[in-house]
């Protein structure tokens, strides 16, 4: 790992900050786990896969079936559902929800490990970043549902693990682990392709934990995945008419999507990519729907919507400030040499390949760990938006949201360092016209905004608990509508048991809380 000068290494005693960082991260993770464990396994997306698991003879059978599903290639997801079903010994809620809570803990731990908290500044930035992580709406979508195995969280964990491997000391085991991580991710769900993006982006920014050979192996696996999926299994891609999607100020159902965009869907795809990008950076639009104008048309823009947009916009500006300040340092050494009219690049070319490679290495050496985090985050956010082209949904931007929180942490460290340095020099950090108190006030408002959004995560998960419990009351009608009613005694017993589990489950009724909360937590 190289060390640059973006301000990552604010020194100080490492031990206490690291310990405190683990404690606050554990508390934040525990609250999310608590809310997750209160939500019953939902009827939609969970029950039918569990009934399928009951009928499937083995994990291998589930794996094979998951590889052949029309439009999707998710064998590992099917295998996980099957394995947990068989291991649960009838304790389905404990098995699936326990696994989900474990994934939450893993994600938080990896998030902290990536950020390497070793100073007071980084601890402060971590606190901020944890509220960005949990407060961003894409995280809510990623964390609450069970399906009954939460593949969205798994992909987040795989991406963070890939970044950690890329920034490790490296070696054969690291390369092998990177390849396995990629295979596991793409076999779980399509967004697992982001693991490749993380590994390649990290390598391009000088992280050598995964060697060039490792990157080539992962790239070859990517090519193999594409060939397997499209040329051999012919699983194709999801059709336009498969699900609803937000567009403009409202949700369009599959029939309307087909009618409006069926002939030429590329404009719709471009809208989805841009919407997905903007939703992470500015919290608008949400699932493809522009909420501020939509709420304005309905007569009132909710306070929660304003908080979401303002907190995201200012955080994005902070990340942008970091990018602007580091832009020059990121230009490869040889490019800078050319720009300045120095003959270094030409000399390197004349001397042949080793010198050229050395020049490239010099270029990469300008990226320190925080640069790598931000650049990999940018790559993940863009790539996540691109692969979400077919429809927009908050949860599919889950990995992008987590990497956005990582970038926010780096941005805050940069602000703290820059301001500290300027004050030490006796200068006004924002110039003579803007008092420091203004910056402090803005940061406090934004930080408080993210705290409100984090509280909103728990409020919304509480609402989900209420709705999911109510759905279980009418599960038999739903199964008939879906043409999935179990015909066997075992299937009927499974539905009955899950229904009883859900209805008897302890829950905080949202009506016992203030009705005004709905306006604040969007």
């Amino acid at each position, binding site marked *: 790992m190289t060390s640059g000068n973006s301000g990552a290494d604010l020194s100080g005693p490492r031990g206490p900050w690291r310990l405190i960082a683990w404690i606050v991260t554990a508390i934040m993770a525990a609250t999310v786990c608590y809310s997750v464990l209160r939500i019953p396994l939902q009827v939609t997306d969970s029950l039918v896969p569990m009934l399928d698991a009951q009928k499937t003879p083995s994990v291998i059978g589930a794996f094979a079936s998951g590889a052949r599903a029309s439009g999707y290639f998710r064998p590992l997801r099917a295998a996980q559902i099957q394995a947990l079903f068989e291991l649960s010994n009838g304790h389905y809620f404990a098995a699936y929800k326990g696994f989900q809570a474990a994934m939450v803990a893993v994600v938080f731990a990896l998030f902290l490990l990536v950020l390497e908290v070793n100073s007071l500044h980084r601890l402060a930035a971590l606190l901020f970043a944890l509220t960005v992580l949990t407060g961003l709406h894409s995280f809510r979508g990623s964390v609450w549902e069970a399906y009954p195995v939460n593949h969205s969280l798994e992909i987040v964990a795989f991406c963070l693990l890939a970044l950690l491997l890329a920034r490790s000391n490296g070696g054969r085991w690291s390369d092998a682990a990177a390849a396995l991580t990629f295979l596991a991710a793409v076999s779980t769900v399509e967004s697992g392709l982001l693991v490749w993006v993380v590994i390649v982006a990290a390598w391009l920014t000088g992280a050598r934990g995964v060697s060039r050979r490792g990157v080539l192996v992962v790239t070859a696996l990517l090519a193999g995945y594409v060939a397997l999926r499209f040329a051999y299994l012919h699983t194709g891609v999801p059709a336009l008419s498969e699900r609803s999607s937000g567009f403009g100020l409202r949700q369009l159902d599959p029939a309307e999507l087909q009618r409006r965009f069926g002939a030429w869907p590329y404009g719709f795809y471009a809208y989805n990519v841009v919407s997905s990008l903007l939703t992470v950076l500015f919290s608008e639009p949400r699932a493809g729907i522009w909420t501020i104008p939509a709420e304005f048309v309905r007569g009132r823009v909710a306070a929660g919507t304003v908080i979401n947009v303002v907190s995201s916009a200012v955080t994005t500006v902070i990340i942008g400030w970091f990018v602007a300040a580091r832009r020059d340092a990121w230009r490869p050494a040889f490019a800078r040499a050319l720009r300045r009219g120095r003959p270094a690049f030409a000399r390197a070319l004349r001397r042949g390949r080793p010198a050229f490679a050395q020049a490239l290495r010099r270029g990469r050496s300008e990226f320190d760990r925080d640069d790598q985090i931000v650049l990999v985050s940018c790559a993940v956010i863009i790539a996540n938006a691109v692969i979400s082209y077919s429809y927009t949904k908050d949860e599919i931007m889950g990995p992008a949201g987590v990497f956005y929180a990582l970038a926010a942490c780096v941005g805050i460290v940069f602000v703290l360092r820059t301001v500290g340095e300027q004050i030490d020099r006796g200068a006004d950090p924002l110039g003579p016209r803007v008092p420091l108190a203004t910056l402090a006030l803005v940061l406090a408002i934004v930080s408080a905004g993210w705290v409100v959004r984090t509280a909103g995560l728990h409020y919304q998960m509480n609402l989900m608990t209420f709705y999911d419990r109510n759905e279980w009351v009418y599960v038999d009608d739903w199964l008939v509508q879906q043409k999935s009613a179990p015909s066997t005694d075992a299937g009927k017993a499974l539905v009955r048991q899950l229904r009883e589990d859900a209805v008897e489950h302890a829950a905080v009724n949202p009506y*016992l809380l203030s009705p005004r909360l709905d306006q604040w937590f969007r």
Partner: protein
Amino acid sequence: MVSMTSRANWILAAVALPAAGWVVVSLVWLVTAALGIPRAFDSRTLTLTEASAVASHADTARLLGNGADPNAASRLRAGLVMNGETTMTPLEAATGAIRSGPVQMLVDRGARIDESNYAVLWCGAMARRNTDMLRFLESRRPERAPIDCTKVRALW
């Protein structure tokens, strides 16, 4: 190393204090939840009347499954629909629900809608502008049911 002047500390505090406050709140929340406090928020403390008033189909099903009487008046705690605590039947409480309540479930399990209570329910739903309930009641209107709301017991 960057020294921490008092002015720089403002910035650091501005960034960290709100989130640190949330961590403290989270810790308190986890501890109190582990101790079962506050119990009043637990939906298992709802009466059938309250479950009906807040449209909790799950709690209504649970309470009916445990043998609750769908015609018995019970507590409707303060703050759910009205500011003060009162007592009423589940169907009467359902007229005050914001969204579609478990009315059909109550009727299926023996809740009565007849001439003795129809007018009270109708006028209660009218007072709360509960269109779902009004539609439901319209389909079960007894022949000679009075609907002059000035002459019946007001629920809300």
